[in-house]
């Protein structure tokens, strides 16, 4: 059995954070922390060094786009999955341009989330 990958959940909604935690495969991922703002996410990212990050885009203090830029400058190989409502496609594209690797549209079901996370770490070594 392989060691589960460390996961950090970034979302200002408690409900969504819990939903993501429930939807992530327990054998494959272990949620090591969560953050409700971009600022908190950076601190947790530095401290916990997660393998995978799920990132909301609309958050207080620091939005997801800026947070992604920061995380990528800390670790250019950070695996970030944007989990956000699709209000504006250009914003989603900008998040990927900043370094995120995938986009999961809210609302999502657990299977979609699980599939997206697996796809995100498919070539992980």
């Amino acid at each position, binding site marked *: 059995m392989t060691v589960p990958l460390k996961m950090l959940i970034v979302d200002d909604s408690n409900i969504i954070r819990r939903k993501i935690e429930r939807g992530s495969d327990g054998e494959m991922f272990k949620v090591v922390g969560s953050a409700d703002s971009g600022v908190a996410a950076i601190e947790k990212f530095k401290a916990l060094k997660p393998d995978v990050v799920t990132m909301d885009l609309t958050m207080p203090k620091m939005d997801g786009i800026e947070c992604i830029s920061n995380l990528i400058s800390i670790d250019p190989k950070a695996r970030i999955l944007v989990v956000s409502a699709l209000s504006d*496609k*250009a914003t*989603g*594209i900008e998040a990927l341009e900043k370094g995120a690797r995938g986009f999961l549209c809210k609302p999502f079901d657990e299977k979609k989330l699980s599939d997206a996370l697996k796809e995100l770490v498919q070539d992980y070594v």
Partner: protein
Amino acid sequence: MWSALGKYKAIVVSIALFLILDASVLSLNFFISFKIADDAVGVNLAGRQRMLTQRTVKSLYDLRLAEGDTVKQETALNELKTTYNLFNTTLTAFDKGGETKNANGETVVLKRVNSDAGRVAIDEAKIIWQPYSDAIAKVIAASGTAAMAQSLNSAIVIAGDKNLLLLKLMNDLTVNLEQVATHQATVLRYIQTGGITLAIINFLIILFHFIGELRQNDKFLEDARKETTDILDTVNEGLFLLDKDLVIGEQQSSQLAEIFGGKDARGLKFSDLIGDLVKPKDLETAQRFVNLLFRPDVKGNLISDLNPLNQVEINIPDEDGGYITRHLSFEFSRVSKDGELKNVLVTVNDITEQVMLARELEETKEKGEQQLEMLTSILHANPGVLKRFIQNAFDAYGRINKILKEQSKSPAVMQRKLNDIFIEVHNFKGEASALELDNFAEYAHVFEDDIQALKQQSKLAGNDFLKLAVHLESLIRYTESIKELADKLASFAFNQDPSSSVRSPTNHENVTSSDWKHLTKLCENVSQRDKKQAQLVLTGFDEAKINDDAQKLVNELSIQFIRNAVVHSIEHPEFRKARGKHETGRIDARLSRLPTGELELSVHDDGCGINYEKIRSKALMIGKWDKAEVEKFTHQQLLSLIFLPGFSTADNQNEDAGRGVGMDIIKKRIDQYQGKIKVSSSSGKHCQFTVTFPADAFAQNEIDTQQGKVA
């Protein structure tokens, strides 16, 4: 290793054969060339042997001639020594193989002559040379003049005897060696020719083999290309490849040109293909999206939600200079080669039909919802009353349409047209409210608002009436839908239970008692809206045998009278209580046939009656008459004012009052049927409107009705 060569085996064998052949020919060439070179030395030295025989004879004679001259003798003797040694060494070398000197004094090695003719010449030469050589050796070795002369004479004798023979033999040797050399050269030529021939054959084999292979490959490629073309010509999608610079590839499906109005996309930038068709922002977002697909770390499957062109509406110019609206769906898929992202495959689908179908479904759904809403809105109404209402509505629409069609640019006529339309709409609204057909009432109210707005406009133009035509159109459509629904309902009810009381009555059937219930409802509704309490008591309505025309008119007048009674006469409950009246006001509507045959409708209320002072002050506000004149108006004169178009004493405009057209309509309708109106009012106590129509006012229709009944 060998199996790894695969289809290249043949070429490897061919090339190896070619190299071996070339190496063999080259080796033979070298070998024979060296042999020829050796032969050339031999031929040369054999030729020199001929010359040496003659030089030896000459040296012998020179020695004799130099007798007495020591210097000459010495020279001749040296020459003899040299000639003799050279001939002897060379002959030995030809005979046994070995070294000798060439013309330059360099040492050369001669191989033993093995040819038959050569051997014969050498063996004979040796026999001749042996005594001759001995004689010369004596000359060289001789000391003293006498010995010299003697040995010289004997040598000259032998020379004279054998010289020519020796010369001939050396000549034979030379000729023989030349023949051998020629033979070698011939062999070399054969070998070269053979080698070159074989090389050419090998080359030709390789060439034909390759041409065959190339042809086969070409055919394969051609077949593959044809298959690809067939696929691209057949698929229903627009297909093309984009490279990293977002340039469109050379191959594309035929459908692509079809979708983009015949545009050849090959080699174009993606932006050139769709730039004119989509919004600049969408184009920019789409380009950024495609660029993401070229980034290996981005998961292609996880960004499809961000595709800005998954459904896009475009307008493509057509041949007639117009535009065709299409709905397209673009899908982008990565194309990798050897793990490297090379291209993005773009699949364009024309989803116009699907989009249209979806819209149609949506519209159908909306229509369904609307019909349900309509159904709810008419369910409470009596089918007979509803049918009459719809008929009245279409009549009113016809009249409005007629007014709208009147052509005139005169402001006065246009104002009159607006007034006439307003009266019709207001009347219609009143009837709708009475029947609680709220949707109709709302439509009509909005219609009224727009007419009011136009009435207040300083200048009117024909185009201003367009808005009203639109209102009319939507009212007609709505009414048609309701009619359709009402017909269905009626037939359904009829089919379910032919004896049911809810079936639709025909035009000539008498009205049932429930047909007047809406007036009671109207009284309740208007009271509620005005925050008043009023009760309507109907008398004689059900008993009076009247035809459709009379019914329509009675209905219309009753609605206006009842509404006016509630709005203008019945007081608010607290006010009534203060006056010692019952909180709930009473309105009595009575319909009766007088002994004279006249039809009489009276509406009586126990409200505050007519407020003449309010009418007077309103008359002053209008400014049509001067103050002194208004002050002098009698009650009778003031009463007549309420029948003027646009005159209302209501303080606020609402659904039930304030437009100032209710009494105006009443007056018009009464006049239309040669009726009379009587108003009696006692301030603070009551008010009564009584309308009387002549017995024959509806006669024509009565006859029709009779005939209808007989038939």
